[in-house]
């Protein structure tokens, strides 16, 4: 799976969790999911749980902040790295 594929899949999962239709141009590089979608506390948990299930990974507890989870590029890098290390 390439980094771009990971990013695309993450956006699909975010879309499923929030119910908001997203396309690639909506969240530009460096864009924040929380700013764009107005993520609330529970939706962010749902995104984490969906991500972990989809990619069979575990996000470290210290990264569970809106600053990290709302950062699409950080999420993509983290998941991409975890998938590659498997």
């Amino acid at each position, binding site marked *: 799976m390439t980094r771009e594929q990971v990013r695309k899949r993450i956006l699909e999962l975010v879309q499923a969790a929030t119910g908001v239709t997203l396309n690639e141009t909506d969240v530009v590089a460096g864009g924040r999911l*929380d700013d764009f979608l107005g993520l*609330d*506390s*529970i939706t*962010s*948990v*749902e995104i*984490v*749980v969906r991500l972990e299930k989809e990619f069979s990974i*575990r996000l470290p*507890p*210290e990264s*569970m*902040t*809106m600053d990290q*989870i709302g950062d699409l590029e950080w999420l993509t890098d983290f998941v991409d790295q975890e998938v590659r290390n498997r």
Partner: protein
Amino acid sequence: MESINQKVYRIGMRVILSIKDVVWLVYLYPLKWVVRVMPCRLVLTLGRRLAPLLLPLTRGHRRRIEERARAVADKLPPECPPEWIAREFVRKAAVRALEDLLITRLIRKGLDRVRISGREHLDKALADGTGVMVVGAHCFANRLAKRYLASQGYDILSVRNRNQKDPAAGRLGRRWLKPRYIAFLGQAIGEEVHPRDRDCGLRILAKLREGGLVHIYLDGAFSREVRKLEFLGKRVKFPVGFLDIVRLTRVPVLPMMCIGDSRDLGICFLPPAELAEAPDREAFIEANVPLLASRLESIILSHPDEWELWVKM
């Protein structure tokens, strides 16, 4: 028609220093300094002896507690009539206020007597490594019990509302004393998160992932989303946000009841709540909020003198 709270709030908005502000001021400064140099046992003994002096001053408050308790008089244990519950409320509130001032010393020194029942439920739930959602009512002994559990190695995160309305506070209290009182309680409680914090859900998840405990007040309607239910003879709001996390993570939900005080503390863990399965979020919430509310009601009715929301809820 204007409610008592609205009336008190209207008056509080006008006055610079209300009676509640004076109570906060005395509590947070001179009283806190004095008890710092006094032996814990002496402070608490004096508190217990002097608490009856508060009864005449809290007549209105007690009358409201009695009225609320009378609505469920048929469900109360015969040894707990409404008048007794109201008197105990004042006594326990006074003792708890002193224990809050002494809590760190009390825990460090070791409590005289602690009885934990149902610990096997807690240890079994924790053994799975998923963390545990501990749910309960607002009881006077909660803060002490949580600090005690933390001292015993049970890492616990409390979900606590820091933006409570205080209709009796004056302008000085609202602006200056209340934030200090809330910060003081935060220190007494230990690790906590506010339900309206943007990181609240994630912090709860992180604590559960670390295999810790997350304590939720089922009778604290400060969640973003609530459901109204019949509860102790009145229609009241219940939080549902935590059930989203339970549904997503499948963590065990363990009811807890804390009774007594620093002389004799009781912590009771009940078997995990058997939550109903449901095809979607709405159905899950609709099925399980009444189930947990009814569990909470029976917990409170087993020790009605320990519940501190007779007036507020």
